[in-house]
């Protein structure tokens, strides 16, 4: 308790007050002592003066008359005073009286007299100006000192006592008003539990004063602190929860997470990071490095980290690991601002593999496994990027593949394609390149081939390979191919132009009979341009009414009369004159022009039939229907409507179709045919025998008339085979209840043969070329005259 007391306010206060009081007292006491001493001495001097005053008049008298006795009396009177030690009365020439008090001390006895001696000059009682004697009086110094000390002692004692009382009073006041409440406050503070909301009580006697205010302030402060402490506690708890949460997310994340600097030092990582990066187990120690993971391209990672830190932008990079199983990781880097990056690692192996597969699939033909058009483009792109060696691009097209596909079904077609691909593969070198561009179109890139001779060798090899029959499901298919060849860079500096050149060559090869491969020539472009121009003009021809309908009579070979005609379209070109059908019909068939043209033909034919009907002539017309027109461009309803409009019956119009019509879409074609036949129309099978059609078609398809192709008729005279064939067709048709029209009859011999075979109808240049309506009318009026049947036929009769 001593130590706290010494440190306490009370002790300090007492010490301060007493110390201050002591110091102040000392100063004041000294001052008072001095003042008192001086006052006492002054009083003493004044007392001596007053003594002299009382004896002055007597001394004056005594000295005036120099009365020694009187003077002596005066001296002894003065000496009766204790303060006086010695008195001398001295006139101008003699000492009048002298006296000393026994036992007294004088100035000469003490070293420092506190009171000086006094003397007074005495004047004559009758003249103020005349000094007659002097009284000198010396004080008793001991008495004087005693008096001084007595006064000083008394005054100082009084003062000291006074100060002591004041000091004690101050101490008590401080103790009562300051120290005690503070100590009470302090004790209260020690005992209260602020956290439990306890408040400090203000001492009762101090209500409303500074102590009470202090109490309130402390209470407020304590309240604020307690609140702040509670908030802090709550925040810390929340923070800990959050940290645990994030730590848990970090630890359990499926993605690998790490923090590293540009040198690859890892400062933080999670378990997934180790698993994903195949981080070696012995490198998990103090300072793991990114380089420890088996990256294939560690430098790329470091460079990406540097880029991330430099730019501050997020970076993403795919990296492969050097592991047994292929493993690709995607690393997303974010700059954390302190020269480090936060990396998120995820396994993208599957994505990569899918990408690769998808890429492969995009550039690969799924059927043959060969690259497709995109693959070719990529390949050419890569060879262009590399060296600019010359090469040859060869487009190979399977002949009449469409027909194979349609007649034998898609699966067969696919097999044909596979076989074709395999055969092509066998015809080229390993350095060469094969792709399937379209349905039946293959591209061969012959590397380093720049001369036609070298390309031709390959082309002949390919053509030879394609001529071999393809055996599929016990069916033997013999096809062939057309090849268009273009050279790089002479025929095209880039793939599109090179392909176009090859396409030109291919289309020439297709249209040129007897030569299955063709090199690109610039003239082909010119020709193509002409075709295009022709197409434009043909389009305009319908609008400008430049088309004409010609009629080739169909003869009843038995009766020798015209029974009808085949309506054939001709183009009366304003500058070129009459354009032959070969020059524009295939073109029209390639485009949709044939549809408009077909409608025009129908309308014109109907109009002509109406004219004939009005003239009382029983003639029918057959019109050619192209595959493209069936079924939508020439619907049965439209034909019926046209006939009805012109007041015609269905028997007046026959529709000629080729085998191809039925091949393109059998179901639709058959429906179309049935609908028309039900309406009463007759259907002619044109060019019979030239296609791939089997005889079973004749039974399957609803047709009325078979038109035997002119190629059979033409060679009938000398070709025994053809004659037999025609005979077989006629016999079979007869058996099936079909009529037969022989086309391209050019001489009487053919007529005789046909008549012998029992072929009822025929047409050909022998009778008439296709002619305009007015000429046809004339011919009809004139009639056909058939010679009597000949025994044998001469050769060389040809009407061209």
């Amino acid at each position, binding site marked *: 308790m001593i130590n706290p007391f010494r440190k306490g306010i009370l002790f300090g206060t007492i010490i301060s007050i007493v110390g201050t009081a002591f110091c102040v007292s000392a100063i004041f006491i000294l001052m008072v002592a001095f003042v008192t001493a001086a006052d006492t001495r002054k009083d003493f001097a004044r007392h001596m003066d007053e003594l002299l005053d009382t004896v002055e008049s*007597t001394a004056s*008298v005594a000295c005036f*008359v120099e009365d020694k006795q009187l003077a002596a009396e005066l001296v002894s009177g003065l000496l009766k005073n204790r303060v006086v030690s010695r008195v001398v009365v001295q006139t101008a020439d003699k000492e009048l009286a002298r006296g000393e008090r026994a036992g007294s001390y004088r100035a000469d006895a003490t070293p420092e007299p506190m009171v000086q001696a006094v003397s007074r000059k005495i004047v004559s009682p009758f003249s103020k100006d005349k000094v007659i004697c002097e009284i000198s009086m010396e004080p008793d110094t001991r008495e004087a000192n005693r008096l001084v000390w007595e006064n000083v002692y008394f005054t100082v004692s009084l003062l000291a006592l006074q100060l002591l009382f004041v000091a004690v009073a101050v101490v008590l006041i401080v103790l009562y008003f300051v120290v005690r409440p503070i100590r009470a406050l302090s004790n209260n503070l020690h005992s209260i539990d602020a956290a439990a909301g306890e408040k400090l009580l203000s001492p009762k006697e101090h209500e409303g004063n500074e102590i009470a205010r202090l109490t309130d302030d402390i209470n407020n402060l304590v309240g604020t602190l307690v609140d702040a402490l509670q908030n802090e506690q709550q925040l810390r708890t929340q923070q800990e929860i959050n940290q645990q949460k994030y730590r848990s997310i970090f630890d359990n994340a499926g993605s690998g997470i790490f923090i590293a600097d540009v040198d690859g030092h890892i400062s933080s990582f999670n378990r997934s990071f180790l698993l994903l990066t195949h981080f070696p187990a012995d490198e998990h120690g103090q300072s793991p490095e990114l380089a420890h993971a088996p990256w294939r391209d560690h430098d790329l990672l470091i460079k990406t980290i540097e880029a991330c830190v430099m730019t501050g932008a997020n970076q993403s990079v795919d990296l492969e690991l050097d592991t047994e199983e292929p493993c690709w990781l995607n690393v997303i880097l974010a700059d954390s601002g302190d020269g480090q990056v936060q990396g998120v690692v995820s396994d993208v192996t599957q994505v990569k593999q899918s990408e690769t597969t998808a890429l492969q699939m995009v550039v690969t033909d799924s059927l043959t496994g060969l690259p497709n058009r995109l693959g070719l483009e990529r390949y050419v792109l890569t060879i262009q990027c590399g060296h600019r060696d010359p090469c040859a691009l060869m487009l190979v097209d399977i002949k009449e593949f469409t027909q194979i596909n349609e007649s034998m079904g898609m699966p067969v077609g696919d097999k044909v394609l596979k076989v074709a691909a395999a055969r092509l593969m066998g015809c080229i070198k390993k350095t060469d390149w094969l792709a399937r561009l379209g349905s039946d179109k293959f591209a061969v890139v012959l590397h380093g081939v720049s001369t036609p001779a070298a390309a031709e060798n390959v082309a002949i090899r390919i053509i030879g390979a394609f001529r071999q029959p393809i055996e599929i499901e016990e069916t033997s298919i013999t096809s062939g191919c057309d090849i268009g060849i273009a050279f790089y860079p002479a025929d095209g500096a880039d793939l599109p132009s090179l392909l176009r050149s090859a396409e030109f060559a291919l289309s020439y090869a297709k249209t040129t009979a007897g030569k299955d491969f063709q090199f690109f020539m610039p003239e082909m472009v010119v020709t193509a341009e002409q075709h295009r121009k022709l197409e434009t003009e043909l389009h305009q021809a319908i609008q400008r009414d430049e088309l004409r309908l010609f009629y080739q009579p169909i003869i009843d070979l038995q009766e020798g009369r015209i029974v009808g005609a085949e309506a054939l379209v001709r183009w009366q070109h304003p500058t070129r004159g009459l354009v032959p059908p070969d020059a524009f019909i295939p073109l029209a068939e390639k485009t949709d022009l044939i549809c408009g043209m077909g409608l025009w033909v129908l309308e014109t034919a109907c109009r002509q039939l109406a004219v004939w009907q009005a003239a009382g002539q029983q003639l029918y017309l057959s019109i050619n229907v192209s595959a493209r027109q069936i079924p939508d461009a020439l619907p049965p309803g439209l034909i019926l409507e046209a006939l009805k409009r012109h007041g015609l019956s269905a028997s007046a119009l026959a529709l000629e179709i080729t085998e191809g019509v039925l091949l393109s879409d059998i179901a639709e074609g058959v429906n179309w045919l049935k609908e028309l036949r039900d309406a009463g129309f007759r259907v002619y099978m044109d060019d019979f025998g030239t296609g791939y059609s089997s005889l079973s078609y004749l039974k399957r398809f609803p047709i009325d008339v078979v038109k035997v192709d002119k190629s059979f008729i033409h060679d009938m005279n000398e070709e025994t085979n053809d004659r037999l064939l025609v005979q077989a067709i006629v016999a079979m048709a007869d058996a099936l209840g079909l009529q037969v029209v022989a086309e391209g009859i050019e001489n009487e011999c053919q007529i005789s043969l046909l008549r012998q075979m029992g072929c009822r109808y025929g047409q050909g240049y022998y009778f008439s070329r296709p002619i305009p309506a007015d000429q046809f009318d004339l011919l009809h009026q004139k009639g056909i005259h058939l010679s009597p049947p000949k025994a044998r036929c001469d050769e060389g009769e040809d009407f061209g």
Partner: protein
Amino acid sequence: MASAADDIVVIVNQNIGVNKMSRDDVIDIFLGRSRRLPSGVTALPLDLPSTSLEREQFYSRLTGKSMGEINAYWARLIFSGRASPPSLAMSQEEAMQMVADNRNAMGYVAKSKVTPSVKIIFELQPE
């Protein structure tokens, strides 16, 4: 008062060799300080009766003090016996007579009373 306005004169015997005296000389002799004239001649001062107007005027004019003061003065000195007050003359005439008769005598009278038998050596004019 006619008499009060009169000069008071100090008279001495005609035979004395002194003709003139100062005021201090007069005070010394009449108030007991000295009994000798400056010439060395012993002087015998004479006072008038205490009721006399001239006596009062004489001391008043000579020292400026009242008769009470003069009496108190003499009272202090009488104890020691060192000095004695002047002898008494009953009147001015007697005073003049005594001066005229006694060579050492010295008195004071109103100037109007002075006869040639005496010699005036000091005059005190009214103030």
